[in-house]
């Protein structure tokens, strides 16, 4: 696994809004088949970084390649499209289309991008909804389901085209522990059965320790007033061995002892 080239490579990604630097010099890579977690406290730029990774927000500086195709400015439209087609994204609230049933939500990408005949699209969409535990909810509208169901349906839609790379934004935020643990198990199962790579943005400790192979941790004050990466590696080792006060506080659910980040 470690021999294959990384599926995501980020070099020096920086985001500024006006004079405010959300983060700078963020560099890391994600290997194929890995569950990679981007973590950090509220407002540290996790979601902004994910927006850069999925091509919604061009970074102020830096270079991002997905599966060898650059999605940042220097790339051509064809290269960017190829990179974007290889990924599925689950948004924080599910972002399901409110005017379609769950089944139709999952079928939409199949209808647009695959040659599958209509009854095959229905069958494929049903299998995907089944895997996330929504087999019996296929005919419901997004307004008729709970938050946890919406997230799972969002994962099913992200998997619609069987992308090798899945991005999940806060999959367990706002869910009860049982549903959240079920979602973690689902992610591990999918990784095992499909060999998919997961990039997950979260700040749920239990979930991070249960599923992450590696993580990076962002902090608002990594460089004084500017944010960036303060730690990288296996979250269990970070928890036990890190000397950074912010990392230690995060994993122990404490208020940091020092106001300054290391």
């Amino acid at each position, binding site marked *: 696994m470690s021999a294959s080239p990384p599926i995501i490579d980020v070099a020096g990604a920086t985001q500024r809004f006006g004079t405010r630097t959300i983060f700078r010099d963020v560099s890391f890579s994600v290997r194929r088949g890995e569950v990679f977690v981007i973590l950090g406290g509220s407002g540290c730029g996790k979601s902004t970084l994910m927006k850069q990774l999925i091509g919604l927000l061009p970074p102020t500086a830096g270079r991002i390649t997905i599966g060898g195709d650059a999605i940042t400015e220097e790339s051509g439209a064809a290269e960017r499209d190829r990179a974007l087609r290889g990924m599925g994204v689950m948004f924080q609230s599910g972002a399901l289309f*409110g005017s379609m049933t769950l*089944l139709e939500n999952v079928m939409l990408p*199949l209808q647009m991008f*695959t*040659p599958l005949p209509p009854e095959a699209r229905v069958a494929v969409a049903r*299998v995907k909804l089944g895997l996330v535990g929504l*087999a019996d909810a296929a*005919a419901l509208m997004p*307004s*008729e389901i709970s938050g946890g169901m919406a997230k799972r349906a969002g994962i099913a839609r992200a998997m619609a085209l069987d992308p090798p790379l899945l991005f999940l934004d806060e999959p367990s935020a706002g869910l009860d522990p049982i549903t959240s643990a079920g979602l973690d198990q689902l992610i591990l199962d999918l990784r095992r059965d499909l060999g998919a790579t997961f990039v997950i943005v979260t700040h749920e400790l239990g979930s991070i320790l249960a599923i992450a192979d590696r993580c990076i941790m962002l902090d608002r004050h990594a460089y004084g007033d500017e944010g960036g990466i303060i730690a990288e590696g296996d979250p269990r080792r970070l928890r036990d061995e890190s000397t950074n006060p912010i990392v230690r506080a995060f994993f122990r659910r404490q208020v940091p002892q020092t106001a300054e980040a290391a």
Partner: protein
Amino acid sequence: MNVADGAERRTLRFAGRLDADGAARIWDNAMRAARQTGRNRTLSLDLADVAYCDLSGTALLLTAEAAHAGRTVTVGASEELQALLDRARATSPRKPAPYAGNQLPGADPLGLLRAGLRSAANGAAFIGEALIALWRVPERRRMLQPVEVMRFADQAGVRSVPLLLLLGTLIGLILAFQSAVPMRRFGADLYVVNLVSISLLRELGALLAAVILAGRTGSAFAAEIGTMKVNEEIDALTVMGLDPMTMLVLPRMMAAMLVMPAMTLLLDIAGLAGMTVVMMAFGFPLVAVVTQIGRAVHVGDLVQGLVKSVAFGAAIGAIGCREGLGTGAGPRAVGLAATGAVVGGIVSTILLDGLFAIIIYRLGF
């Protein structure tokens, strides 16, 4: 995919990549082969040569299994593929409800009539609620912020001034021109002034202002309150003991009633100016046109239009707010609420106008 037949079993041998593209190529053939296997033969799915199988491929295999009435076995699957198949089989519904497709709703005239009656009844109830809220304003003074009223008045009225001036002038121009051409044949073209100014002041000014208010502001009220409803903001207000009727509806209705006479007056003036331009182009001096306007209309005509416009404003504001508060769930519902606000606003304006025509005739103005 190829099919090998035996006396007791039919083998479907799959090869290559079973992803969406691969599955699409063989889907129909595989289903036909599976269906025609016959209940007393075993369907064997040979996956030894499958290089890659994702969830689309899994769906193909499971659907083939379901299409065959008898026993099915899978052979040659890798460990991961077998695990995936088992889990997908366990989580798929045994008997899924058939998917009817994305169909257009059928025509239902009776349903339309029922919906119309229901919305009329709801409208009456809503006016009652608004009156009760108004009655209780003294004890809820803090909930009704004058600055809110002014903000809505600015949105609904001041910001529509350019539009009012443009439309008013154009309507005056067009009316005067269209009626002057035929009236000229009878040498009655000076009386175009009477025609246009009476119709503008009594009817058209208020009606056009109402159409603009319904389109610009009624729809905005509905969309704004509707989005609040979808985001549970209305529930939050209610739980805090704040009355949505007083907080949201009354200031909007007051603003609409406040700006309508001003909007109507502006439209009237712009329309008369437009008409004057046409009359001067037809060779009448300015003095003659202005004198004729003075002879044709009375203060009563103007007041009549302004009074009506206040009622129109109340109706449009109330309907916009009611549509917003009645919004269902989802983004489509907000769109429907905005549509309902515009249609309801215009229809109620015209109905009210008819009512006013009868009342004013009876009163003998």
